[in-house]
């Protein structure tokens, strides 16, 4: 059981900044995220795109914003459960909550802050009628352990970076790699595209374009896939394989959070914006893009503000009746949980002679 003060669901910008604001109040945080890395959409969808409305940054790349937020909250030693989706929440008799992930990891905290953005990122599944029958029986939407492909025949579908990068990587692991894409053009880093071209020329990657996988053949496990190729004359044929890995990106879904008994409106969690962004369940807060209230704007900078107010309310829940007064970091400095201290340099008093 992982125990913390504030359990944050979602490690995007709002969740990461919560760690900092909570740390100033001596509250510890742990974050759960379905993605394998922190940063949320900023890392997953558009790390190389600029953002222009972060105060004091005329321009910052989304990926760099994530790095800066991680650096800013580092001394408050946040814990992470990455690559797991928060599945269930159970209120305990002592008022705390236990949140369990899809992999069974349990987390306990008196305050839960949902900073889940548009939801957890789920793989987009191609429209192949029998594909769900073969999930985990040769069809994988995410590559977790490349070793399972050793000396196997693998077919990858998709035209983005992950399809290219995994084709390159697996060309050294699998006995046979086939890459299938609907067009001849690929959308990826130039060096990845060139590398695939090189591997294709060397016969290490079997490239089939423009083509589409339209069926899966097998008895309990994948034996082959059916390909429709549109080049010159349209034709259909089978390719023998042990694994079929469709990589068509991820799309966010609110997911299991929708069943937690929270008031939901327009795919977002209704909160009290006049006070502290608490939901209809006391002790559970929703901050950032995942919440809604009259006048809500889905902006990173609004998430930062919401996180700050939420932490004040969390402090009152965790330390009932305990006095506290807002402090300025410039005046008080920052005492990290790791023993570090940051503070403004003392003024120098020296006579001028």
């Amino acid at each position, binding site marked *: 059981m992982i125990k913390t003060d504030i359990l944050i669901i979602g490690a995007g910008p709002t969740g990461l900044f919560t760690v900092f604001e909570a740390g100033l109040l001596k509250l510890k945080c742990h974050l759960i995220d379905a993605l394998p890395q922190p940063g949320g959409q900023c890392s997953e969808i558009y790390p190389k795109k600029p953002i222009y409305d972060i105060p004091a940054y005329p321009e910052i790349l989304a990926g760099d914003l994530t790095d800066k937020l991680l650096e800013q909250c580092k001394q408050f030693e946040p814990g992470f459960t990455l690559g797991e989706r928060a599945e269930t929440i159970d209120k305990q008799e002592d008022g705390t909550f236990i949140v369990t992930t899809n992999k069974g990891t349990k987390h306990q905290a008196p305050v839960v802050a949902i900073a889940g953005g*548009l939801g957890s990122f789920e793989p987009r599944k191609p429209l192949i009628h029998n594909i769900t029958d073969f999930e985990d029986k040769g069809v994988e939407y995410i590559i977790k352990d490349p070793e399972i492909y050793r000396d196997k025949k693998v077919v990858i579908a998709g035209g983005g970076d992950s399809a290219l990068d995994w084709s390159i990587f697996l060309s050294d692991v699998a006995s046979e790699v086939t890459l299938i894409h609907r*067009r001849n053009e690929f959308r990826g880093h130039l060096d990845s595209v060139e590398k695939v071209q090189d591997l294709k020329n060397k016969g290490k990657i079997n490239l089939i374009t423009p083509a589409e996988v339209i069926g899966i053949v097998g008895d309990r496990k994948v034996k082959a896939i059916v390909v429709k190729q549109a080049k010159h004359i349209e034709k259909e044929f089978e390719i023998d394989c042990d694994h079929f890995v469709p990589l068509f*990106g991820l799309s966010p879904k609110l997911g299991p959070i929708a069943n937690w008994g929270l008031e939901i409106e327009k795919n977002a969690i209704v909160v009290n914006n006049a006070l502290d962004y608490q939901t209809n369940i006391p002790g559970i807060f929703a901050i950032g893009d995942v919440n809604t209230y009259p006048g809500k704007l889905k902006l990173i900078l609004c998430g930062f503000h919401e996180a700050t107010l939420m932490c004040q309310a969390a402090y009152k829940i965790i330390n009932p009746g305990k006095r506290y007064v807002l402090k300025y970091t410039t005046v008080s400095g920052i005492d990290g949980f790791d023993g570090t201290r940051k503070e403004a340099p003392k003024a120098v008093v020296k006579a001028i002679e």
Partner: protein
Amino acid sequence: MEQDVNIKIIDRDGITHEILAPTDMAMNLMEVVRSYELAPEGTIGICGGMAMCASCQCYVNSTHELPEMQDDEEAMLSEAFYVKDNSRLGCQIQITPEMEGLEVELAPES
């Protein structure tokens, strides 16, 4: 208003909406759909309009001359589902006076 254009949008439930869209607010078709809430929040414009998610895919049913498809839109559509010959990403269609009478249908959510 003078600078508004009339657009016909069929939502994902097959219901036709005849709406007015401003041409002077630098809005694109995806944003117009969101402003009229013709698709639930969180199911359209997920990437914010960067041609990186295809959640605003639509089928253009009228014969308007549309802005030429850029590489990123073409690439995104090549990875999207339910794609037809008249598929476009709504976020890449700016609302200009030339869009008067445009007719589109939202593609299914995927």
